């Protein structure tokens, strides 16, 4: 009994030493911004639910902006990775949380239609209140060296030659990748074979080894492979070229009027009071405008774009409609 106690004491001491040694992230009260919050929100730690695993694109985006937003809000933001079900488990938990502004979550372009894409989903587009959008990440179309595809024209030619045979890797069922494929096929009149991998990393590795012909990873996933020369970059699906990959043309430049990005944002459960929402919007805007954040986001491969408040709400609804139409037209609903 004594030994157990002394062990526990030793443990507590060890941990506190380690805790002190690294300094922790205790913020100063009042925030670094010039505007003081009008209400007494926030007065305790804010929980941020990320429905995907730590280290992934979603997680990194949220961690980066939270780092700066913490200072603006004057409270810690604790990231909680609740994974599973292609993001639906975390979002279900978010939709059921109290709308008092102390629980927020990550949201992306396809999530508002989850109830159509997957069975048994209890939330829908109205369950959430959009707060801010922080980035709109494009995809880079890459091809394997084996496939012999060097540009968009090759891609379309090869796909038309053998309809339904060109292997197109997707990073997960019904993610932004899938929708890109649907949009592209519709616009150019081709059809390709869909190979579903678990995560962008697996998809791009497959292209690198030649098992898969084409994939559309995000910039951060694609860059190392492109730099190593293992895959052939074809085009990027944003409006303009990307600074960190200046040699990759846009799809538009190749003559096809096509852009596709996956936007990332933060939402709260529906019913958050207006002043709380406003405080959050302001804080995130100040964090976003911080040039240090911009630099870090760029290095992480994020395409920063910002919308907040009513702007974002309108965009959110519009986006929902667009994706809903796509899903209905291709009969994906289950």
């Amino acid at each position: 009994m004594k030994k157990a106690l002394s062990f526990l004491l030793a443990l507590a001491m060890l941990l506190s030493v380690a805790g002190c040694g690294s300094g922790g992230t205790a913020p100063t009260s009042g925030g670094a911004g010039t505007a003081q919050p009008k209400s007494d929100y926030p007065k305790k730690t804010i929980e941020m639910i990320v429905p995907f695993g730590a280290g992934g694109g979603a997680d990194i985006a949220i961690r980066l902006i939270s780092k700066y937003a913490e200072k603006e809000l004057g409270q810690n933001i604790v990231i909680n990775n609740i994974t599973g079900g292609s993001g639906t488990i975390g979002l279900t938990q978010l939709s059921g949380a109290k709308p008092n502004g102390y629980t927020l979550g990550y949201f992306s372009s396809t999530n508002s239609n989850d109830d159509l894409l997957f069975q048994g989903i209890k939330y829908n587009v109205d369950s959430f209140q959009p707060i801010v959008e922080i980035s709109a990440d494009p995809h880079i179309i890459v091809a394997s060296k084996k496939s012999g595809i060097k540009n968009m024209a090759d891609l379309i030619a090869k796909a038309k030659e053998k309809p339904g045979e060109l292997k197109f890797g997707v990073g997960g069922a019904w993610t932004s990748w899938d929708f890109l494929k649907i949009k592209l096929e519709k616009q150019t009149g081709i059809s390709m074979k869909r190979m579903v991998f678990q995560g962008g990393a697996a998809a791009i590795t497959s292209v690198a080894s030649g098992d898969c012909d084409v994939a559309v990873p995000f910039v951060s996933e694609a860059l190392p492979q492109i730099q190593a020369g293992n895959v052939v970059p074809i085009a990027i699906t944003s409006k303009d070229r990307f600074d960190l990959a200046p040699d990759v043309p846009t799809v538009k430049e190749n003559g096809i009027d096509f852009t596709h990005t996956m936007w990332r944002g933060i939402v709260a459960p529906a019913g958050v009071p207006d002043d709380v929402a406003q405080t959050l919007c302001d804080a995130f805007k100040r964090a976003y405008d911080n040039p240090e954040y911009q630099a870090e986001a760029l290095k992480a491969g994020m395409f920063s774009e910002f919308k907040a408040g009513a702007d974002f709400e309108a965009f959110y609804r519009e986006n929902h409609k667009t994706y809903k139409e796509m899903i209905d037209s291709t009969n994906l609903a289950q």
Partner: protein
Amino acid sequence: MKNIHINLAIQTGVFLLLAAFYTQLGGMPEEAKGYPTFLLAACAIVNASILFSDLRNLRDEEAVEKDPAAPAMIRRVILYIVVLGLYIFMIEKIGYVLSTLLFCVASLQIMRVRSWKMQVLLPLCLTISAYVVFSRFLMISLPVGTWIHFGF
């Protein structure tokens, strides 16, 4: 109950489980169906094989000498399992702190601990140290309960 009867019960239970899974196959899209169907079949085959051997041995099996301590032991184990279940159920209802305290006391009781010191000190130490480490240091919010709101 002879051992062999328990075994038969297990095999039957497994078959019931497989049947429940089978009913779910209906709504599945084709691509998702193939692999689980194969597994269901494999389970059914192996289970049937075990069942037949057991049935064949049914005649040969002799009654085993009953260990006199067994019923008391089984009662204790089942009671503990119920207490475990209650503990986990209660964490969300009355909060982590209270349910852990209660669980420790219950555990000590079932294991027939008589000393008063132990029955007070252990629950307190365990609950508090676990709370400190997880809630303060690892910043994980432990449940505070929906029926009785008791937490920090």
